[in-house]
């Protein structure tokens, strides 16, 4: 069946550093991937998405990289800020199968 996993459950970075959050997926037919941010006590918030015909997409301070060969995607956050502290989920394709999330903590 489908699964989406995250390599690390927690990530701690210093303010101003770049953060990289990784995600692996199993369904090679997945054609659309989304990253969500979930702050404590809130619902997930859309950050950025990418189609399978792309290998990179950039937003404001965030970049998503997709490697279809190894079924891996990553979220890069530039100049991480305390407000970036949250749990980050990747999700794939139509059913939005989510991983457990990576908890990002930004230390001042």
């Amino acid at each position, binding site marked *: 069946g489908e699964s989406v996993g995250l390599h690390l459950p927690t990530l701690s970075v210093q303010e101003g550093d770049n953060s990289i959050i990784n995600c692996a997926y199993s369904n090679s037919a997945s054609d*659309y991937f*989304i990253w*969500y941010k979930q702050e404590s006590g*809130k*619902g*997930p*918030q*859309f950050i950025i*998405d990418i*189609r399978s015909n792309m290998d990179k997409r950039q937003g404001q301070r965030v970049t998503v990289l997709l490697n279809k060969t190894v079924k891996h995607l990553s979220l890069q956050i530039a100049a991480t800020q305390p407000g970036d502290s949250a749990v980050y*989920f990747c*999700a794939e*394709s*139509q*059913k*939005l*199968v*989510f*991983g*457990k*999330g990576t908890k990002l903590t930004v230390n001042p």
Partner: protein
Amino acid sequence: GAGVSQSPSNKVTEKGKDVELRCDPISGHTALYWYRQSLGQGLEFLIYFQGNSAPDKSGLPSDRFSAERTGGSVSTLTIQRTQQEDSAVYLCASSLGRGVYSGNTIYFGEGSWLTVV
């Protein structure tokens, strides 16, 4: 509305009671999703609606769970004879459509926090 609205935001119920959770999606969104999130866990897919029909109910954990959607808008998730393991946050999301990249970003509500005691 401006966003996905869910009610109640918090619900404490006794084991064995039935509960109803409501979701009001973003106006015009035809696709509606229900997810469950246990403490410290990821999101567990429950059910998906396209309009009023539910082509994918594969995630409903048992026959105690049911959902309906009327008028292509509001959806209700019903849990009968609640059990303690049903305690979780129930998240609703909506999108213009499903599976197609353009314009189909999925927006979540803030969730209904259910505690079964």
